[in-house]
Every structure is written in C-alpha cells, then in structure tokens.
C-alpha cells in the first residue's frame, strides 16, 4: 500500500454510498413499516354482538397497572349487574408494559401496533374507551387525526 491510497479508496467508498437509496422514511407523508410484534398503544376490543365496549368493569387492569394509567368508574343496578360508566386511559403515563392486557379476564384490552400518537397537548392523551376501540380497529390511523391535516 502506497502513499495516499487510503484516501483514494475512502473517496471511492464514500461515492459508492452516495449512489445508494437513502434510508430515511419521510415519516408523516409515508408511514414507516413496523415490525410484526411491535409494541404499540393498548387497545380495546369491541364486543362482536353488541358493538359496545367489551370491558366488564372488574378493575383488574386498574390493579395490575404499575403507573396509575387506568381509571374505571362503574355502577350497579339493583339486581347487582355492573356496567362501566367511564373507562379512562392516560396514554401520557403508559409505559407500554401490557400488564393490563395480561390481567384482563375477558380479553377486552388488546395489544396493537398503533404508534401515530403524537399531540402537542398532554391533556389530549387521556383517552376514552371509544378512542381505544378505534385504534384497535384502525392502528395505522393517527390517534389525533385532526392535527395531521394541513
């Protein structure tokens, strides 16, 4: 190896890289493909029969959550039937550990691959069961779609 050959081989190498396709994904315009088992936001299954929330309000996810993400308000009829008044999920606190999904006895909580979750407002991140059902059915849609339109 003579004097300056390293520089020349370096220059050729750099040029050959310059002719490759860039690895950049133009994210908001064209979505980045995610892995098959990507850990996205926690979703909620819609009951096939009623088309309603499939949560039974047992509160196990609330207990399982290490981070106080989930809050469930339930009420009971006189016959002792329980229904969910409000299901609240604070995505801003969620660490995507999926312990709630594991805890759920009726498989109401589901794993999704949704990752378009950004918003400039932290208060937006407190989600309802409807938001979670929407994201389960359509994980490629942005969570806050109104923000994505120009």
């Amino acid at each position: 190896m003579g004097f300056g050959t390293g520089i020349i081989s370096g220059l050729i190498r750099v040029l050959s890289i310059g002719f490759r396709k860039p690895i950049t994904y133009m994210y908001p315009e064209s979505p980045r493909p995610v892995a098959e088992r990507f850990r996205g936001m926690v979703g909620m299954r819609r009951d096939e029969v009623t088309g309603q929330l499939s949560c039974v309000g047992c509160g196990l996810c609330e207990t399982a959550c290490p981070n106080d993400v989930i809050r469930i308000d339930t009420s009971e009829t006189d016959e002792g039937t329980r229904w969910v008044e409000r299901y609240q999920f604070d995505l801003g606190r969620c660490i995507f550990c999926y312990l709630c999904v594991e805890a759920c006895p009726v498989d109401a909580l589901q794993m999704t691959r949704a990752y378009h979750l950004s918003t400039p407002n932290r208060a937006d991140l407190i989600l309802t069961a409807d938001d979670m059902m929407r994201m389960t059915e359509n994980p490629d849609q942005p969570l806050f779609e109104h923000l994505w339109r120009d």
Partner: protein
Amino acid sequence: MVDGWDVLILVIKALAIFIIVPVAPLVFVLAERKILGRIQSRIGPNRVGPWGLLQTLADGIKLGAKEDFIPPAGDRVVFWLAPLFMVVPAAMAWAVIPIGPEVEIGRKIGLWVTDLNVAILYILALGSVAVYGPVMAGWSSNSKYALFGSLRSTAQVISYEITMGVAVLGVLVYTGSFSLVDIVEKQKDMWFAIPQVIGLFVFLVSGIAETNRAPFDLPEAETEIVAGYHVEYSGMRFAMFFLAEYANMFLVSALAVILFFGGWHGWTIPGIEGLTSVLWFMLKTLALMFVYFWLRATLPRLRYDQLMAFCWKFLLPLGIVNLLITAVLRLGWS
C-alpha cells in the same frame, strides 16, 4: 475607440458578476447539503419549497431578520469591516475570470469583465487581502475562540498561498503570460492538467486549504473552537462570511479550470460556440465544486502540526520540483 456601447456592455458584465457572486453560493450551499445528505444515506433539506430548493433562501431571510450583535468589549469598527474584507476580494477576483471565448454579437465581446495582463498576480494579491478578514474578525470579537481561529487561519492561508503560487508558476512557465485569457487559449490542444499533473495536485490541495474547507477547516473547526473567527458574528454579517466562503470555493474551482482544465475549451456545437463554451466552463467548475463536497464528506480534519508539516515539508518541495522539471523541459523545447 470607446463608444457608449462599450460602456454599456462593461456595465452589463459587471452587473452579471455582482449577481452571480451572491446567488451562486445560495445554490452551492443547497447542493452541498443535498450531496452530503445522500452520502450519509439521508435525504438532506426537503421541507422548504419543492425538494427543499428554497432552503438556503429561507436561511438567508432568517439570518437577515436576526439581531445584529456586536460584542460590547470588541472593536466596533474592525468588527464591522472584517466581513467586507472577506466578501469584496471574492467578488473583485471575478473581474478577471474569463468564462467564455470572444463571441460575436453585433460586435466582438469577450466573456470576461477585463483581460488584465497581470490577472494571476491580481488574484494572488486579492487572496492576500482576504487573509485580513479572519484576522480582523478574530481580533475585534474579543473572544478567545475567535482569536484562535484567526491565528490558525493566518498561518494556514499564508503558508498555503506559497504552495499555490509555486503551482501557478508551473503553468506560467508554459504559457509565458499572466493573462488568464492567454492561458486558456494556449490550452486549445492540450490541457495543462496532463503535463502539470503534480502542479494540479499542489494547486487543488492549496486551494482547499486557502478556502478553509475540510479537511483543512481548522480555522472554523466546530468541534474544537466552535466556529473560529466568526463565532461572535450573527445575522447578515455571518451571512457575509458564509457567502465569502462559498464564493471563494467557486473562485478557486474556476481558477483551477482556467489554469489546468482548458477553461472553456471542449467539443462545441457549430453555430452556438459561445454558449457551449460557457457551458463547458460551468460544467468543469461544478465538477470541481463537487470534489470539494466529496472531500468534505470523506476526510477528517487534520491536526495543526500535520497541516503545517504537510505544507512546508511535502507540498512546497513537491511544487518546487515540479517547477524545476517544467522549467528544464521548457528550456529543452525552445
């Protein structure tokens, strides 16, 4: 006989230079960012305008809107003058650069502002004046980093000016003329890059060092002394330094094309010789600009002692040997 038309043509030529010198850097900055992006597997600027074409324009407007800050402990007058010492020589040198042959549009018009008979000396002299830009900027900023940058710049530019001069001398021995138009005309049959290949190497390396570009960008080494001599500059004054850097790169590329790559000579299409000649000149200059960007993407910055050793212990002896060989060969011919 000088008439009104001559004066008008001269004014048009001068105006063209005054438009090219500030506009060309806008294009080159974008081109550099795009090319560097591709080399680093990125896309580069792509948000402002179609394909990011208006990025540098947006940057320029941003710089123009910024606060014009002068360090309170600095020397106001020198601080104010320093950017001018960078920009004005870069623009003035273009007065003697011939971008094409003499064309016939009603009358004979040379595609240069003036065919100075000491053009090379004029350009080297302007290069020496441009050293004052970093020196004054570094001194008047009253900042240690700026002073470091200007000290480095002074030593580097003065050292590499010598090797550049030696490389140019080789060409001058061949042509026997200081006029750039004559030098280009003498390369009609053979580019000087072939007999002067060592001279070309010395010239290009010195040119990159003269313009403070990577791998010789020690005066503005971002990682060591933040930005060197222009660290205290903001807004339009910083833009002037930036402009001067790219204008100087363009100038050195054009000079290398004129001295070594046959200037505007190339295959021409009959009927529009003038236009094709200018296109040839531009093509060659842009290719050399690409080499600048390419080197920046490849090579890391030199250490300071390496920089000086490379100039004085390697490049200068090489240039002198080249000059001696050229002189002996020239003597043998005649």
